[in-house]
């Protein structure tokens, strides 16, 4: 082992050597900063070396090219992507309540594209006559029933088998009023309410 040399015994450099050393250290540092560190860290590339060495790519945010959403009215038509259905517009949520007088009925339906999904939960204060169905292209003559059982409540999900309005017919079978409450979320574009007095009403749906 060498004999211990304390810092005060180190041979002193000449003033000029000290100056050259310090300036060289600074100069090398500036070169390293300009050519490597600043391009890599901040994308500052005064000499173009960062681009040449591929270092500026490190300081760029990771490029995420979003695939544009399907435009126009087809925005709510699903695009299958493996097990996923992609949509061009956000799903909506809805909550409605209907009071049915004695023997009264109401129909409430959502506009869905083919393959679009909707989840629902409805409940009535007493059992009701019920028909969950769809109308092809909103044509009342082309109706397809999905579930025609009498129920007091139902929780489920629908994948629309065709484009059109899809929803429920609820009929109060008794002499006392029934309240039906429905909550749903889905890729639907609008909702329609049909009452027994032949009135027709569109519902505002909200984006969650």
């Amino acid at each position, binding site marked *: 082992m060498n004999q*211990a040399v304390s810092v*005060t015994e180190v041979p002193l*450099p000449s003033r000029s050597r*000290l100056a050259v*050393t310090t300036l060289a*250290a600074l100069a090398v540092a500036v070169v*390293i900063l300009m050519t490597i560190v600043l391009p890599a860290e901040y994308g500052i590339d005064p000499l173009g070396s960062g681009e040449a060495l591929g270092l500026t790519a490190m300081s760029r945010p990771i490029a995420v090219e979003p695939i544009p959403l399907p435009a126009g009215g087809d925005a709510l038509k699903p695009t299958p992507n493996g097990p996923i259905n992609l949509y061009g517009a956000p799903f909506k949520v809805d909550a409605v309540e209907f009071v049915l007088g004695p023997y009264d009925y109401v129909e409430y339906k959502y506009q869905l594209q083919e393959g679009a999904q909707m989840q629902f939960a409805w409940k009535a204060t007493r059992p009701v006559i019920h028909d969950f169905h769809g109308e092809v292209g909103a044509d009342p003559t082309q109706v397809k029933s999905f579930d025609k059982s009498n129920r007091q409540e139902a929780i489920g999900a629908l994948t629309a088998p065709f484009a059109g309005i899809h929803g429920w017919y609820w009929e109060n079978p008794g002499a006392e009023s029934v309240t039906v409450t429905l909550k749903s979320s889905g890729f639907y574009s609008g909702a329609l309410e049909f009452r027994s007095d032949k009135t027709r009403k569109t519902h505002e749906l909200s984006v969650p």
Partner: protein
Amino acid sequence: MTAARQAQLGVVIGLAMAFWTIVSTPVAAHGVSSKDALFLLSLNGPAIIPLMYLGAKHMVTGYDHLLFLIGVIFYLYRLKDILLYVSLFTVGHSITLLGGALGGIRVDPYLIDAVIGLSIVYKGFENIGGFRRLLGFQPNPRAAVLVFGLFHGFGLATKLQQFNLSPNGLVENIVSFNVGVEIGQLLALTAVLIGLTYWRARPGYLQHAYVTNAALMTAGFVFAGYQLAGFAIGE
């Protein structure tokens, strides 16, 4: 070994050190890794062992603190001296780490890190006899280590403050982090000492010492410049 061969070796070692600084810059980036950051943000209550681990990890992987320590112990041979200097450094950075993080003293992390970079330059300059040549005397190295220790502690505090740690368990967590820093420092110091001792036993250590400390200055300038640029562009 000829003088030319030794000079070559010195340059290679110096360049390797500078290169190490550069390659570790984007990796360690002297912050807290994103996984650890998520952990810190999620904390709500004392997490003594994890914070100790993070403190130790920060020290072992924080090349700025390591480079400074290399500079500090470069000409220290006796265990007594090493313990004295390292204790001064520890006292210094513990005061500001605890005071800064608990007292909520906020300092710009870039400026603090730039000063830490310059502390490496200072130590390298001191080791090549710069102050004795320039000023005719050696500024008290113990005082310098203590003062720079204060700055390093502020640097550690700013790292923790970036995460707005929950007040729940704050004291325990910061003290744990500080304890971890000391453990990490001990581990890093052991590794540095083993390397330096091995190197000292070889011929030509003193010849390479000059180049090594010049390289230390370079690394310090690079680190300071990197931080000052970050401050300037406000990233």
